[in-house]
C-alpha cells in the first residue's frame, strides 16, 4: 500500500517537475533569442502567461472526434513516455515504472504524440495542416534512422535495453557514453536537431509559410493543452539524452533528500546545456526544404550512427 502511495506521489512530482522545467526552458529560449537579436524580449515566465490565456479563451470550434482527441492524445503520450523514464539514478523519489527493455518500448512510444497530432490535424481539413503533417512524418523518418542507430550502438555496447542499467554502467566505469562512443552520440545529437524542430528543421510549423502547419486549426484550450504536452515531452527527450549519453544524474548509493536535490540541480544543468545545442544551431540557420532535411539526416548522421555501431562491436 505504502509502495503504491509513493509511486503515485512520485508520478505527480515527476509530472509537475517536467511541466515546470519544460515551460521555463521555452521561456528562456524566447528570452535568449530576443537578447541575441538585440531585443529585451518577454519575461521568462511568458509561456505560463500564454498558457493561462489560452486556457481562459471562452470558445472553441469543433471539427470532429479526432480533432478533440488530438490534444488529449498528445498529453497522454507525453505523460506515458515520461512515466517510463528513470529521471534520476537511484529511483527513490521518482519511482517511475521503468523496466528492463524500456528503451525499445520508449522508442515506440515517442512517435505516438506525433501520430495523434497527425490524425487530429488531418480531420480539421485545413490544407496547411495536411502539408505540415506530411512534412512532419517525412522529417521523422529522416531523424529516426540516426537516432535508432545510435541507440542500437548503446544496446550493443552494454548488452542491455534498460536505461537504468546503461546509467549505472556509465557511473561505474566513470566514462560518459558521450566519450566512450562519440560517434553514436554525434548521430543522436544530429537527430535531436530534428526532434526539437528549431531552425533549420522547423519545416513542420514553418511560420509564414505553412501558417504553423498541423496546429493551424487549433486555438484556445486545445493549443494550450498541446503546449503543455510539448513542454513535458521536451523535458522527457532531454532527460533521455542525459541518461543515455551523460550518465544521468544522481548516485544510486546515496538517496537522501540533499543528495536528491543536488542530483536534480545537476540534471537541470546537463539538460539545459544539451538543450542549447539545437537552439544555438537554430539561431544561425535558415530553414531547409523537406527533401534537404531528409538528405541531411540520411547522410552524415546516419553514417556516424553506422560507425558508432561498428565502434561498439569492436
Amino acid at each position, binding site marked *: 500500500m505504502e509502495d503504491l502511495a509513493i509511486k503515485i506521489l512520485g508520478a505527480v512530482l515527476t509530472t509537475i517537475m517536467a511541466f515546470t522545467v519544460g515551460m521555463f526552458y521555452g521561456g528562456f529560449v524566447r528570452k535568449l533569442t530576443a537578447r541575441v537579436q538585440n*531585443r*529585451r524580449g518577454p519575461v521568462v515566465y511568458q509561456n505560463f502567461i500564454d498558457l493561462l490565456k489560452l486556457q481562459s479563451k471562452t470558445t472553441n470550434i469543433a471539427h470532429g472526434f479526432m480533432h478533440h482527441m488530438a490534444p488529449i492524445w498528445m498529453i497522454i503520450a507525453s505523460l506515458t513516455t515520461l512515466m517510463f523514464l528513470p529521471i534520476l539514478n537511484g529511483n527513490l523519489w521518482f519511482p517511475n515504472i521503468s523496466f528492463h527493455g524500456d528503451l525499445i518500448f520508449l522508442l515506440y512510444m515517442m512517435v505516438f504524440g506525433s501520430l495523434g497530432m497527425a490524425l487530429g490535424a488531418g480531420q480539421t481539413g485545413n490544407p496547411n495542416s495536411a502539408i505540415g503533417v506530411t512534412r512532419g512524418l517525412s522529417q521523422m523518418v529522416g531523424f529516426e534512422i540516426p537516432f535508432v542507430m545510435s541507440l542500437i550502438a548503446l544496446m550493443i555496447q552494454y548488452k542491455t535495453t534498460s536505461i537504468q542499467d546503461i546509467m549505472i554502467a556509465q557511473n561505474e566505469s566513470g566514462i560518459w557514453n558521450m566519450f566512450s562512443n562519440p560517434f553514436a552520440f554525434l548521430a543522436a545529437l544530429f537527430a535531436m536537431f530534428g526532434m526539437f524542430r528549431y531552425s533549420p528543421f522547423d519545416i513542420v510549423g514553418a511560420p509564414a509559410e505553412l501558417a504553423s502547419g498541423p496546429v493551424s486549426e487549433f486555438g484556445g484550450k486545445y493549443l494550450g493543452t498541446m503546449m503543455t504536452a510539448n513542454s513535458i515531452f521536451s523535458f522527457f527527450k532531454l532527460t533521455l539524452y542525459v541518461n543515455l549519453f551523460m550518465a544521468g544524474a544522481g548516485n544510486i548509493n546515496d538517496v537522501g533528500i540533499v543528495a536528491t536535490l543536488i542530483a536534480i540541480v545537476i540534471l537541470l544543468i546537463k539538460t539545459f546545456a544539451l538543450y542549447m545545442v539545437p537552439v544555438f544551431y537554430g539561431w544561425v540557420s535558415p530553414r531547409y526544404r523537406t527533401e534537404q532535411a531528409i538528405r541531411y539526416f540520411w547522410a552524415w548522421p546516419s553514417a556516424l550512427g553506422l560507425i558508432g555501431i561498428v565502434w561498439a562491436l569492436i
Partner: protein
Amino acid sequence: MTITENNIKQPIGEYIQNWARKHSLFVLAYGTGCGAIEIPPTMTSRYDAERFGIRGAATPRQADVLLITGYLATKSLKRVIRVYEQMQDPKYVIAFGSCTINGGMYYDSYNTINALDRYIPVDVYINGCMPRPEAVISGFVELQKQIASGNAYNATKYKENLEWYRENQKKIIKNWRMPDYNW
C-alpha cells in the same frame, strides 16, 4: 472575493484571466493598405513589441487581436469578416490609420470602405497616416488597459447586433456567397 484596481471591482478569477489576456496578445496582422509596413519594425529589434507579450499568430484560430492596417478594399472586407468570425473569444480588433476611421485620403474612392466599425467592431483606433511604431505600441497599451478593466467586450456586442452588422456588410459585399455564421 473581489479585487479592486483603479476603481474597478472584479472577481478574483476574472482578474487573473484578464491579467493573462492582457500580457499575452497573439496578433494576426491583416496587412491591408500601407500600414502593414509598420508591423515589422514594431515586432523586431528596434521597438520590440514582444516585451509586452505581443506575439505574431499564424492563423485566426490562434489569434487574439486582429490588426487592420489601413484602407480596406471592398473585396478584402469579405476576407476580413471571415477571419474575424473565425477567431475565438475573447477577441479584439485594432484599426490603423485614418483610412479605417473615416476613409482618410481614400474617402471618395469607389472601391474602399470608409468607416471600419460599421462592419466589424473596433476596440482601439490608432490615428495617423500612417501611425509610427510608437503610436502602434501605445495603441496596444490602450487595449491592454481596456482588457484589464474588463471592458473589452466588443466581440459580444458583435454577436448581439449581428443583424445590423450583416445588413451593412451585405450592402458592400454584393455576392455574399458564404455561410451566415462563420464561427
